[in-house]
């Protein structure tokens, strides 16, 4: 009996993957551990190894095919073995017309059911309900129920029939519905140049949605061209995930914000000195260290809640938001509370490099317990961040700026850096947040502290 090769589930939230490239062909011998194919997930590309030994009997999903995780993509067995008859994998809709993200977040929010107490938290915290996104990403867009005749009328009128309410069986849009809609929309009064109408028909632009710039509101070809240029584009898969997760977080987690200014004048001097000595530390490394230490002191900020239960993590897995051209990723420094500054630096540097190269594995991007988002390089005075799903707080770090500061009765110019903590108000209150963020600030301002680090 041949073995079915399944599309792996590379990350907790991955619903479907696309096969980028097959490294084996049908008929090739396969050893355990051989790379079979490469996939693209919503987060990264990765190679998939074989669990089986034998011959690649059949490739079920060819390059470019997108299927749900766990779907059979190939068969490995002995040459000549019959492949069991099975329905072909449900192909996910092609990438181009990606359905819009669900309008409303799933009411339940986080996946964990409330009533039965959760088993010991897995190392990778389940944060977002995959179910929330499932229907949107795997099901085809709801088919418009419309009769062929009505569809043709709409096509002739160069309008999009989607908004029309159908009066036929099962809500089918009939010709009369199209005609009534056109009348209600004042279609007869619409003035449009023949060339504009022609272009709109070819490009599928709904001319009822156009505003004419011609005489007396006549729609001209430029109006159509503008509409084409301004047409919505599908979001990239990565942005869709970002959109979905952040919407989820921001709409279900009551955020509050606490801002402090940290005086980094001394730290910056120290860092310059270290640099001259060949030490590679960045300001972020120090901030990370300060955060890790503060978290040990305030474990309520290394926690998460679903509104009914609180999970407090015993280790700090520190997320670092990294901005890429294509979006945002958050690699996670595992067990950051066990690391020295040097180790922190090295781990962070390696992760950032991998992120820039698109080589992060799904596990390297999940399971954070607290995140730092540093926009220090981007010359911002201050900003707030949205808590990463599954975590309880995030620290937004702004740029360091030369600022006149009143100190002991005189005004001095100091290097000031604003930090804003976003925290889940269900977990913690303002006073705790104030204490926590000031604990970070103090560590950054106290040479005795960071000299001990490096």
């Amino acid at each position: 009996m041949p073995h079915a090769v399944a599309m792996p589930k590379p990350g907790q939230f991955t619903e479907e993957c696309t096969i980028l490239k097959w490294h084996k062909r049908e008929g090739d011998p396969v050893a355990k551990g051989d790379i079979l194919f490469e996939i693209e997930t919503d987060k990264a590309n990765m190679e998939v190894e074989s669990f089986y030994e034998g011959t690649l009997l059949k490739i079920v999903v060819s390059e470019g095919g997108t299927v749900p995780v766990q779907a059979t993509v190939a068969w490995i067995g002995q040459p000549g073995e019959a492949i069991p008859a099975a329905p072909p994998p449900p192909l996910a809709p092609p990438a181009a017309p990606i359905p819009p993200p669900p309008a409303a977040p799933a009411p339940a929010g986080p996946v964990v059911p409330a009533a039965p107490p959760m088993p010991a938290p897995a190392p990778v915290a389940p944060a977002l309900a995959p179910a929330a996104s499932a229907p949107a990403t795997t099901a085809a867009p709801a088919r418009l129920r419309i009769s062929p005749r009505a569809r043709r009328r709409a096509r002739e009128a160069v309008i999009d029939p989607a908004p029309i309410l159908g009066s036929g069986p099962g809500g089918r849009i009939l010709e009369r519905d199209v005609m009534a809609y056109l009348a209600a929309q004042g279609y007869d009064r619409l003035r449009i140049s023949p060339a504009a109408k022609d272009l709109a028909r070819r490009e599928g632009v709904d001319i009822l949605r156009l505003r004419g710039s011609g005489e007396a509101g006549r729609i001209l070809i430029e109006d159509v061209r503008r509409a084409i240029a301004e047409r919505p584009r599908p979001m990239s898969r990565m942005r869709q995930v970002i959109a979905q997760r952040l919407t989820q977080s921001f709409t279900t987690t009551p955020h509050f914000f606490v801002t402090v200014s940290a005086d980094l004048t001394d730290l910056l001097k120290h860092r310059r000195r270290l640099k001259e000595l060949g030490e590679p530390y960045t300001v972020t490394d120090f901030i990370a260290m300060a955060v890790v230490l503060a978290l040990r002191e305030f474990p309520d900020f290394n926690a998460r809640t679903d509104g009914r239960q609180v999970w407090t993590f015993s280790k700090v897995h520190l997320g670092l938001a990294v901005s890429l051209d294509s979006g945002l990723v958050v690699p996670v420094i595992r067990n950051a509370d066990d690391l020295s500054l040097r180790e922190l630096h090295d781990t962070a540097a390696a992760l950032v490099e991998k992120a820039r190269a698109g080589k992060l594995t799904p596990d390297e991007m999940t399971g954070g317990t607290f995140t730092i988002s540093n926009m220090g390089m981007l010359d911002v005075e201050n900003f707030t961040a949205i808590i990463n799903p599954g975590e309880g707080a995030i620290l937004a770090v702004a740029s360091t700026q030369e600022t006149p500061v009143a100190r002991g009765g005189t005004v001095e110019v100091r290097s000031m850096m604003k930090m804003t903590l976003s925290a889940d108000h269900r977990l913690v209150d303002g006073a705790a947040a104030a204490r926590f963020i000031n604990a970070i600030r103090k560590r950054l301002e106290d040479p005795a502290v960071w000299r001990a680090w490096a």
Partner: protein
Amino acid sequence: MSKPNYLSFVQPDFTPFEIDCGRIRGYQYAGRLEVELAAGRLTREQTLEMYEDMLIVREVEDMIVRLRSGAYDPLPGYNYRGPTHVSIGQEGTAVGACTALHPADRITSTHRGHGDSLAKGCAAIRRMSEAELRSRVPGSTAGGAALLEEALEDHVFRTIAELFGKDDGYCRGRGGGMHIADFRIGHLGANAIVGGGVPIATGAAMALRYQRSPNVVCCFAGDGAYANGVVLESLNFAAQAQWTNHLAGDRPFGLPIIFLIQNNLYAMTGRAVDEILGVRHLARRGAGFADNNLHAEVVNGMDALAVFDAVRRAADLCRAGLGPVLLDAVTYRYYGHSLGDPRVEYRSKEEEAAWRAVDPIDRFRAALLAAGAAAESDLAAIEQRVRDRNTRAALRAADAPDPKPEEVLKFMYTTSRCDAVPEPHRNVRVLDAEAAKVKRDKDGRITYRDAIKEGMVEEMLRDHRVIFYGEDVAEYGNAFKLTKGMLEMFGRERVFNTPISEACICGTAVGAAMAGLRPIVELMYMDFALMASDQISNQAAKWHYMSGGQTTLPLVIRASVGGGKGYGGQHSQTLESVFAHIPGLYVVYPATAADAKGLIKAAVRDDNPVMYVESQLLYSEKGVVPEGDHLVPIGVADIKRPGRDLTFVGWGPAILDALKAAEILAKDGIEAEVVDIRSLVPLDEETILRSVAKTGRCVVVSQAVQIGSFTAEIAARIAEKAFDELDAPVVRVGAKDGIAPQSHILEAAFLPNAQDMVAAARRIL
């Protein structure tokens, strides 16, 4: 002329008696070649021609055998794809018979018909005038013997080309060896349905009789055919008393047909002797059909001279009006049913050797030498000539162009029509001009029933070639009094009763149409069309195509539908969908009196075979029908009621229900259009699609059961060709998928009605 009607007066008479079947004699021919030559019944040249013709047959069939094993030297490796039903061993029968026929005499033949076809052609060509020969080889500049030789070679070439499926074949590659035909020399077709050609031959003989032709038909069929129903029907049909007794008026004349049984002892492999027949000699069949035993005799089919003698005498009888004649020519098929048949399962090698020892060609050769009719060198020269001619013809045929794939449907239907009746056929004699006259009411209306009659009567007045026959159509005026008066008007020559032999009724119409008539035949109930389905579907529908357009089939089969009258399962079927599925037929079904008349007239004038379906439910429906030449073109639908919201499309009685349904819907402001297709084949798609384009909704209606109904064909075409016009799925209304019950309560539930149509319409409105 006196009135044609007569009343029986058969007295009860139960006096004891014995039937004396008389004597049927066998193998009585004692002639020899010298005797025939001396008596002047054959010339020396004719005997040499017979020898050559037998060789021509054997050479062609030997070529087939060799081609099958790659052993035909002139065409090494040629891939012969045709059938291999060779008649080697039977040449004496084919050539002996055809030599005794006149060039214009007709034959029909069988799937094992290469010999009959070649022999008839050779015999006819040898008797042709120079002008006739030239018409067969138009490009030729030769004359005399050279022209004859060219015509003979052309005959062999066209035969082989047909076997090879070439466009130069007799049937343009549409027929092949099993359906070869050459209508120019009176060959009405080999038939691959065993027995299928026999009613056709009978119909052709009936036509020759009607035309007062001096010619006869020789109907070749095997021993296997003489156990087939339609063959026995044909023997009875040909032997009917009405051809020769007082009913035949001033010309009692038996059908001029020779039923020549090519009794090769095997019905495929079924053994005629001892196994699948109850008689030792098939000639006995004659005793079952005529008191004169059909002049039956058993003939030595291995002896060309004996066959020649028997067929010559039989033809003389037929030409004298004393036919039909049954000849049982016992012969032998050396090979199996086809070359795939090893023969070892059912007959012995010893038997084959014994029959090969009386080979017709060898015997004839010996006789020629013995009679001094030819020297060894003369015969060797003939043998060489036959071989060389065959080689040239085969090479040419192999190189000849294939038919064009894009012309695969050429010859399916003819576009020809009888728009003007040729002069000799306009002369029509009428006995009683008033007898079948239809009277109109004060509004100018007549019934559907009378409209059909009026159409038939007008066409019979217009064209003498139109004859009409069927069961109980004469004095009785048919089972529904539809044809009342037609006998009185035209006489029994043109309007006559037939035995209850539906297959033969339809088959004789095919033969009569091939021989130049334009018959209308009647099937009392459409259910009985299934009895005749071979003749309708395999013969009438196919011969125009299978002959490569050589013949047309201008015939009309009227079939009456009894549905709705509580006649139960075998008298109520609406079967036009069945025949619409058979390419080659036209199928029409009028719904109104005016269309009934217009379509029957158009059908009679059309040169394609037309299945004309009529409904007994409609017989009494009245309508205004134009007098005189009112024609409804076949293949043109009619909008019976215009509307814009919904289309009912259908035919037959369902149209009346659709009109009622439209009335009901109109009360709700819904305007339904009713399209009566009138012709199922050809279908006026354009009118249907135009209506659907207008309304966007369509209900297809008929009285046929839903499964496999032509309504599905229409729905499918709309879906395919007018998808974008549809605002709702196309739905169908028909009878339930069951058998028509007798109970009127059940039948009302079985058949569709106007309410069903309204409901269907509302479902999609």
